């Protein structure tokens, strides 16, 4: 079989047979593709599934998948925090607390990096197992300036190293991009070339709206709360969708902590499927389609990958 040079992101994979403590984290491997999958039913995560419950098509061709135990794969968590002027004050304090709560929930083999972005993108801590280093970096966060959201998203994706670990890029932003060099499509293209899963956390702006209700036989003006997605939503929606992640909303600054920990918990509850592509071209863009077999639930996974 032609050797597949699958984009590093899409993981030169590696079916886990065990875990090692040295830099070679996996004992044995098979070149293939790894796909990070989230299954939900309504608002609930669906747990307890196995590879047999999934149907995965690569360019429409059914593949033979196996499942990797998520527990066995270390995590690289790349935090990209918006520190533009609008984050100053209470929001920044809440953001730091939320970041610290994530550190408490990481496992010893997990590594973390911290990127901040305002007018410039700043790497405050490279991928490191040291929680102390990250805490020190949190202490240096200061909010002012414009918003280089797209450049920061790209930087976070580019920092994903070649290790066969799972990479979660967690972006927090409270506004639209106002300073990046890169356009949306350039960042989305870069995202397609990595296997990092991007989650974004945004602040949901709640407003009271009034509507005429005819529900349950009653009619009249009713007040309800609507969530308005910030302008950044479009880009973040697209980016998270492409990588199989999603946008999570915090209802307030205080809610950031719970939203962050929920994001990490959700990431840990995902399934990692792997397969060696068969019957498809060894290069180019591969569209992926992942479904459940005989079970109900919504499957969220990256839309495809580049084989290079």
């Amino acid at each position: 079989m032609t050797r597949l040079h699958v984009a590093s992101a899409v993981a030169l994979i590696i079916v886990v047979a065990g875990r090692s403590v040295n830099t070679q984290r996996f004992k044995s491997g098979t070149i293939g593709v790894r796909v990070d999958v989230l299954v939900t039913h309504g608002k609930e995560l669906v747990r307890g599934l196995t590879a047999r419950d999934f149907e995965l098509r690569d360019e429409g061709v059914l593949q033979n998948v196996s499942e990797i135990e998520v527990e066995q794969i270390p995590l690289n968590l790349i935090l990209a925090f918006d520190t533009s002027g609008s984050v100053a004050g209470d929001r920044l304090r809440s953001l730091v607390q939320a970041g610290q709560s994530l550190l408490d929930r990481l496992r010893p083999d997990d590594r973390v990096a911290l990127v901040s972005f305002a007018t410039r993108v700043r790497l405050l801590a490279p991928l490191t197992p040291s929680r102390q280093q990250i805490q020190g970096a949190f202490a240096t966060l200061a909010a002012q300036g414009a918003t280089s959201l797209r450049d920061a998203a790209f930087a976070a994706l580019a920092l994903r190293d070649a290790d066969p670990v799972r990479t979660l890029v967690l972006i927090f932003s409270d506004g639209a991009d106002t300073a990046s060099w890169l356009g949306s499509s350039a960042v989305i293209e870069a995202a397609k070339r990595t296997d990092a899963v991007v989650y974004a956390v945004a602040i949901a702006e709640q407003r009271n709206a009034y509507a005429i209700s005819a529900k349950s036989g009653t009619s009249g003006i009713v007040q309800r709360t609507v969530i308005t997605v910030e302008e950044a939503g479009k880009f973040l929606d697209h980016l998270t969708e492409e990588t199989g992640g999603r946008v999570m909303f915090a209802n307030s600054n205080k809610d950031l902590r719970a939203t962050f920990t929920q994001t990490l918990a959700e990431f840990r509850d995902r399934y990692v499927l792997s397969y060696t592509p068969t019957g498809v071209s060894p290069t180019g863009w591969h569209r992926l389609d992942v479904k459940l077999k005989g079970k109900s639930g919504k499957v969220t996974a990256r839309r495809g990958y580049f084989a290079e």
Partner: protein
Amino acid sequence: MKAVLVGLASCHIVLASPQGATTPYGEAIDLFRRGDEELAVNQLARIMFDEIIRERDALFRTLDSKDREEAERAAATIRGAVMLHTARAFAALARGNDGEFRYQLQAAGTYVTRLRSRDHRAPFVQKWPLVVLATLHQGRQVRTAKEFGEHARDPGGDSAELLLALGATEEMAWRINHEDDVDPGVKGDLKTAERHYRQALILSPTEIEARLRLGRVLVLRDDAEGMKVLGQIDQRAEMPYQYLARLFEGETLEKRGDMAEAERRYTMAASIVPTAQSAYVALAHLRHARGARAEAADDVRSSARARDVPDAADPWFWYSRGMAWRAVGYVEDLRRMIQP
């Protein structure tokens, strides 16, 4: 509102106290000219509309006075009033009060129209629309800038700087629509921008920014002349212009698939202004796309690790904000011009 506006209210306009400022409106203008801008702007908020109209009409009558000294004094007061209303307008915009912003800007505009009828080439008359446009660019308010720019045009012929600002408005609007993935309320037309820049260059052939922007819109429109125009911006130009020209050349070459040459141009840009980040991001993105992931990560690390680099060290940041970088200079000029 997230946009950061250049606070016109923070401009320190110093003016010798005019005589006879006895009404609250006259006092507000006087305060503004003395440098108490915040107080002046707040005082203006308390003055009734009809009082402003009454005072304005009186100033217009004095402006027509045959006593040249008296007329000049009225003109200076009017220039102060223009700045007062403009400052109030931008303070309102920063608060998200679009209605008051428009009302105050219109009040200032009425004065400027009157001054223009006396002398449409007067430096104050020429400079005022530029400061408004530059401030709107800073806040990325391209729809308002476009509307305002259309009204600011001089039937007797636009200045090179105004043409440059009009072109930059179109270019910004296009960029926000196409790259920032948001709807700014106006599409932005690169062809119109090109026309404005060409006219600006006819009026002022040494206007390097007009040349750079012309080159940029041409390459964005896939016009082969664009690279030629950008190539004219060489070592004789100031560093930020050289930087941007090489950055735009790199972007164009990358789109054409000439990755090696694109990489060379990005690298050149990075060496011209090493503290700027955009060239490193462009370089990293190009290398990432070519599969050179480790090099891309190194580019990101080397530029993002830099400490003590001012936020505004990147020429791209200013370029993307149209004329915003000129706002401070324009205000300084206007400050001098409101002296009687």
